[in-house]
């Protein structure tokens, strides 16, 4: 069985590498045409550094919130007996199909200074748009589904017999979650968190509407593109690629720490079924 499917792999390899080339070529092209001295100078500019800082801080906050709230939600959706469960699950996908700009406008109408939620807060001088909070709200909206959906799939793929066995041995739900479900589902959850993190880092359309200021890296890149053309935008694009690479590396490192190095791919969860 292990030796037979070679021709299949060759064909799939050919097909897959075509797509891979298509995915990597723009980035390779970016690096090949790099104007390193100019780029490093641009990256040292105060507004570029501030944009990097804003992006890192905002996405870190977003990822924390998404993990703290999204993982319990996913567990609930996977394991609890909920009425209309399928409906709740499909609602989670909704932000993924809302176009970015529309998402921004929807959020603005809620959190803006005259929005349902924004108005009473604005009266107390708390603003939810055009600051870090606005960026985080935009990132939460577009990126949370990645955490919830991945965690949901990961929890669902945990063998429920193991959980039942723990229950018969007297474990509470809480103990079962931490001892059985969470460790087994972790690779999938980690993959979802990584995806969400990268999505949050690169978020542009919704953020532009919710928080033009302070510039996050994608917004900064757009502003530079508008003012200085490609020469202005490429260094910022390089920063974004770099940050995403860091996010993937951190995620791989984290899963290695938890002992799942062999089965975790940062961009997709496979569970323990590879071998």
């Amino acid at each position: 069985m292990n030796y037979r499917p070679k021709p299949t792999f060759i064909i799939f390899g050919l097909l897959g590498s075509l797509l891979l080339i298509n995915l990597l070529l723009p980035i390779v092209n970016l690096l090949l045409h790099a104007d390193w001295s100019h780029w490093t100078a641009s990256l040292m500019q105060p507004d570029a550094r501030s944009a990097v800082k804003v992006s890192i801080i905002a996405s870190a906050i977003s990822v924390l919130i998404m993990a703290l709230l999204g993982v319990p939600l996913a567990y609930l959706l996977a394991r609890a007996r909920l009425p209309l469960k399928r409906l709740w699950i499909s609602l989670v996908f909704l932000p993924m199909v809302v176009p970015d700009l529309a998402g921004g406008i929807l959020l603005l109408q809620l959190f803006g200074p005259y929005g349902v939620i924004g108005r009473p807060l604005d009266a107390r001088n708390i603003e939810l748009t055009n600051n870090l909070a606005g960026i985080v709200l935009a990132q939460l909206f577009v990126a949370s589904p990645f955490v919830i959906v991945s965690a949901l799939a990961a929890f669902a793929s945990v063998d429920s017999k193991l959980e039942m066995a723990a229950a018969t041995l007297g474990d509470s739900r809480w103990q079962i979650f931490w001892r059985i479900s969470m460790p087994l589902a972790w690779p999938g959850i980690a993959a979802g968190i990584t995806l969400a993190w990268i999505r949050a880092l690169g978020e542009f359309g919704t953020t532009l509407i919710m928080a033009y200021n302070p510039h996050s890296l994608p917004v900064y890149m757009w502003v530079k593109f508008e003012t200085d053309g490609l020469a202005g935008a490429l260094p910022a694009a390089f920063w974004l690629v770099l940050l995403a690479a860091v996010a993937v590396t951190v995620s791989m490192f984290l899963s290695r720490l938890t002992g799942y190095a062999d089965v975790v791919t940062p961009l997709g969860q496979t569970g323990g079924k590879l071998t």
Partner: protein
Amino acid sequence: MLVIALLAFVAIPTVSSSEDHTVSILYAGSLAAVMENGIGPAFVQATGYGYQGEAQGSLGAAQMIRDRVRTPDVFISADPSVNQSILMGPQNGGLVKWFVTLASSQLVLAYNPHSKFASKFEAAAANKVPWYEVLEMPGVHFGRGDPRIDPKGYRTLFLFSLAGKYYHRQEIPGLLGDPLNPAQVFPEIVLMARVESGQFDAGIFYKHEVVAHKLPYITLPPEINLGDVHFAALYAGESYTTPSGQHVSGAPILFTLTIPETARHREAALAFAKFLLSSNSLLNQFGLGSIDHQVGGELNQVPTDLRRFNSGTFKP
């Protein structure tokens, strides 16, 4: 190869079947409604050519042409100086050799009709209260364009500076705070979304944007609204330097048209230019002002077919 073949399959029908019959226009973002709802369809109906429009900030659009990431057949800018500083001359690769002024516009103060200050703005529109006194009221949220990326952004700075002198009220420019005041400054599309969705009470816009979006507005005096060529000398007293070092001076708001050297469909481009230069009433309907079409740059480079529309030379 397969991928390229598939992509080619997707790409070919739009390129070859409409070769020379579809004109692609890159235009100043504020013209979106005028172009997509007015000019575009009218052009297709009148001439049988296809029409493909793309809205971008004027500065950004010009950068895209210079960086060759867009090769539009016609470029419509919201400021003659964008042609001159980014596209014309050897330092810019000479991608544009001439332009003609197309139409004028003016700055207005538009407001959301459901704003809690709407009655105050209405009173200002009826000249019962000065407009700047409404903006001075505590709690009013108003927005404006970003001077870094949008000519309307720096024009708004000029407007408030001119208003301070015109009304002899030195505190008027102070309403803006810093030129880049993050509480007020937004890209065009975001600003319109904020005022339309009621998240801002008011904003400074071009008249034609406000007409297209059907927002109520306050007309400002020609001495300050940058919409009247007769006050060009007065406007010229204002200036601003962008953070990236570009120096801009006050001037009447003029939209310009050109056919860049990189245009792919020259015949269609000419047809479109002719159509647009003879569409004054359509432009007026959308809130733009008619002007004499003056030529900037090299007069002898203007296509022969367009010369009959010209009246004089544009002096910046």
